[in-house]
């Protein structure tokens, strides 16, 4: 077990890769860890961290991990692929014709990545707080002395009804190797339930009221990124099923959503939902 302190990512004797991105020599605990580190490490100039530097540093790091297991490598590579897509997209001039499906798929990937990064960061900070709590708790010792002699004799026999076989069983249990892996479904996302709910919400709002912008549809949850992301996924799902049309007149402009399905489609839309499980 490594003795690395939680804060180890903040001591920076590490070599520079790219102008503003640092990577430390220690191995990273997973793709989100690495990406978070690359983006958030340089806390002074957050906005100077460019996607290009991140992608390069990320790929360099992946390359260094020669002997990691296949599952881990796959996760790292999936994210690398998304990053490369994003980088390519940014290199393209604005007026190049882009297939809307591909564009949406890329956005979906990016938003999923973003939501997973946020989730990862949330638990990282929760872990830091738990670390502090356990540090504080370690400053006290519980009393363990137990019963005084005169009372011990009174106590019922703790081994009453125990048999040698019980002991044997307890021993085997104590020796048991702890549970090992059986399945490796590493792509289950934590947002599937709320996407379904978000589709419900969209189905209640879209069929009436004509074209609405995504901004309007998410105004009530605008300060909760996670909630906005799942609504975005919901819109994409409805688009995939052909019951809404999307229109965005300029990049980063408002996304306008128009209901083009009929009443029956509402039920169909729900039953056809892919939860993001694989």
């Amino acid at each position, binding site marked *: 077990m490594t*003795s690395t302190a939680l804060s180890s990512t903040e001591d920076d004797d590490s070599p520079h890769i790219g102008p503003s991105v640092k990577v430390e020599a220690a191995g990273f605990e997973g793709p989100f860890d690495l990406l978070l580190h690359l983006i958030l490490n340089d806390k002074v100039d957050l906005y100077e961290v460019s996607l290009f530097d991140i992608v390069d540093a990320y790929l360099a790091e992946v390359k260094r991990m020669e002997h990691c297991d296949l599952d881990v490598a796959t996760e790292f590579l999936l994210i690398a692929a998304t990053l490369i897509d*994003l980088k390519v997209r940014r290199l*393209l001039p604005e007026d190049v014709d882009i297939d809307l499906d591909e564009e949406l798929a890329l956005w979906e990937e990016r938003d999923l990545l973003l939501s997973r990064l946020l989730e*990862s960061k*949330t638990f990282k900070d929760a872990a830091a*707080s738990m670390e502090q709590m356990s540090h504080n708790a370690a*400053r006290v*010792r*519980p009393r363990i002395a137990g019963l005084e002699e005169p009372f011990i004799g009174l106590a019922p026999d703790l081994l009453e009804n125990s048999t040698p076989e019980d002991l044997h069983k307890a021993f085997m249990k104590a020796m048991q190797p702890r549970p090992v892996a059986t399945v490796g479904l590493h792509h289950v996302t*934590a947002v599937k339930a709320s996407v379904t709910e978000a589709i419900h919400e969209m189905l209640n709002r879209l069929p009436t009221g004509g074209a609405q912008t995504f901004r309007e549809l998410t105004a009530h949850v605008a300060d909760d990124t996670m909630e906005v992301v799942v609504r975005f996924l919901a819109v994409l799902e409805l688009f995939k099923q052909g019951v809404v049309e999307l229109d965005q007149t300029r990049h980063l402009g408002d996304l306008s959503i128009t209901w083009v399905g009929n009443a029956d489609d509402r039920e169909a839309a729900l039953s056809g939902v892919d939860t993001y499980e694989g």
Partner: protein
Amino acid sequence: MSDDELVVDLTDQDHLVQLSRGIEALVMVASDPVPDAELARSLDTDEVTVRSICVALSDSYEDQGRGFQLAYVAGGWRFQSHPDMSDVITGHVLDGQHQKLSPAAMETLAIIAYKQPISRAQISAIRGVNVDGVLRTLSQRGYVAEIGRDEGPGQAVLFGTTQLFCEKLGIPSANDLPPLGDFVPPAHVVEALEHTLMAEPADAVAGD
């Protein structure tokens, strides 16, 4: 009923004192935290009374500057050394309890603590890595345990945190962790992440 009790409480100081002494004695000879219910049963009173006496006792030790505390940890009351005295105690009682968890183990533990019951695959999905080794360490340490099976076709083992975990954190139960919402990244971090992952050409971003 609570009216009756109130009358008893106010008029029968002696009874209260006896309950208070009984709690001190019972907790003193216990080797594990003693739940309210257990104290109430042994003292023939109710849990609300027990709890309010324990709080009062705990305050009195603190006010008197005692070197010990009465604390509610891992589902019950226990005597423990005062945190101020950690230097004195650490030199005295040496054991393996101070083993620090790796960052990976700590984060996995956080996910389990907040999302329990949770399966191995779900933890892996959140962490983006295989968590078998870490999970083994955590269950060997007794911080997490199997607490059930998923009802789905795979019948995946579901994990949760243990009493020992609560003890290590000095909290009554896993529900007493600070709300996860406290740790949702602040706006500037979210913005930084969004900004960096923005797929638009740099010009377009600047023009926004």
